[in-house]
């Protein structure tokens, strides 16, 4: 019995020491991690948004946009002077080949895509991950908008649309195209709020 108590104490002590050390490391890395995440967001915003002179990561609105579960997402606003020239938000495609795909999409004030970037996915390396690596494919979205192409062609080529799929991987690009289209629809319905014309 005494042995059991001793073992429990020792194991407990190991746990306590480990917890203490981890708490310290967490404290020490919290700042740098936040900064790294912020830099990552800013870098992403710079890629997808039209040129801006504000800090979009600090000029945000929370809107019911991009989240298939119906929650709210942060919309980052790009401004030149006072005028909102574009906005970016993360649109989630719930139907990737391997779970959800998060796409950061930038839209100009007029509703034209200024760029997209996949920020989180678990697609197959070498197949589905071309949505990240294939820059030509990603850039093809630039300049597209609702009505350009028309509704019927906002699809991958296999489904009769204008967007390329990849050899051996159709599900991933299909999910991305669908999500981006959906994001544009959502942008349209929130456009005035995003542009700050009315709240």
């Amino acid at each position, binding site marked *: 019995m005494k042995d059991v108590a001793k073992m429990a104490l020792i194991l407990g002590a190991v746990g306590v020491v480990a917890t203490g050390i*981890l708490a310290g490391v967490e404290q020490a890395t919290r700042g740098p991690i936040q900064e790294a995440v912020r830099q990552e967001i800013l870098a992403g915003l710079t890629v997808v948004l039209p040129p801006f002179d504000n800090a979009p990561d600090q000029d945000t609105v929370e809107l019911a946009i991009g989240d298939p579960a119906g929650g709210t997402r942060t919309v980052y606003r790009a401004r030149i002077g006072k005028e909102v020239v574009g906005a970016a938000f993360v649109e989630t495609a719930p139907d990737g080949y391997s779970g959800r795909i998060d796409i950061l999409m930038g839209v100009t004030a007029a509703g034209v895509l200024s760029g997209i970037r996949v920020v989180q996915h678990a697609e197959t390396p070498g197949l589905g991950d071309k949505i990240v690596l294939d820059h030509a494919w990603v850039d093809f979205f630039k300049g597209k908008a609702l009505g350009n192409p028309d509704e019927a062609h906002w699809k991958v080529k296999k489904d009769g649309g204008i967007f390329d799929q990849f050899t051996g991987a159709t599900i991933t690009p299909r999910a991305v195209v669908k999500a981006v289209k959906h994001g544009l629809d959502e942008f349209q319905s929130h456009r005035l709020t995003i542009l700050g014309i009315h709240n």
Partner: protein
Amino acid sequence: MEDKSYSSIAADGFWNNNAVFAQLLGMCPLLAVTSTAENGIAMGLASMVVLIGANFVVSLIRHWIPREVRIPAYIVVIASFVTVVDLTMNAYVHDLHKTLGLFIPLIVVNCAILGRAEAFASKTTPARAAFDGVMTGLGFTFALFVLGAVREVIGMGTIFGVSIFGGDYIPVLMMILPPGAFIALGFILAGVRIINDRREAKRQAKPHPVENLQVQEASA
């Protein structure tokens, strides 16, 4: 065990008792992250840091931990180091962490690490244990690099992201999918066996002049 020499720790850790090639341990990270050479090396190095730290600490506390609760105690030590590595990578090599992030926590259940703690670190001095961590870690990294490189070259036609065959090469996509890991590993293990057999044959051949005798007889 206490007096195992550093050179034999090195030889065993890196090759003779290589976690992957000889013991077939750590298959989970091995199969999951080795789709490219770079991922393989990064995962290997992360595992090495955990191995060194866990081995060192396990050895430090080896006299205080009762036999009955040693496994949970080792797991706590290993899990703590993994968490430290995870947080540190997230903070300072954020991009790499994004690629490997999912698999870093899996280092906890890499039995190669618990195996070293149990079989070696818990029975030897901290310095030897840490050195064993370095060598086992290097061996593991080497194995992951070889597998990652083979899969990347065949599966994507690149090495460290640089194209090597030019545009005409049609990548064998299967090699970077999970089955490719098993197939590549099978061939690599076969290769390792051949190397080991050759070395063994040489070692046996040397000290015996008998063979030379036979050769002379034959030529005569």
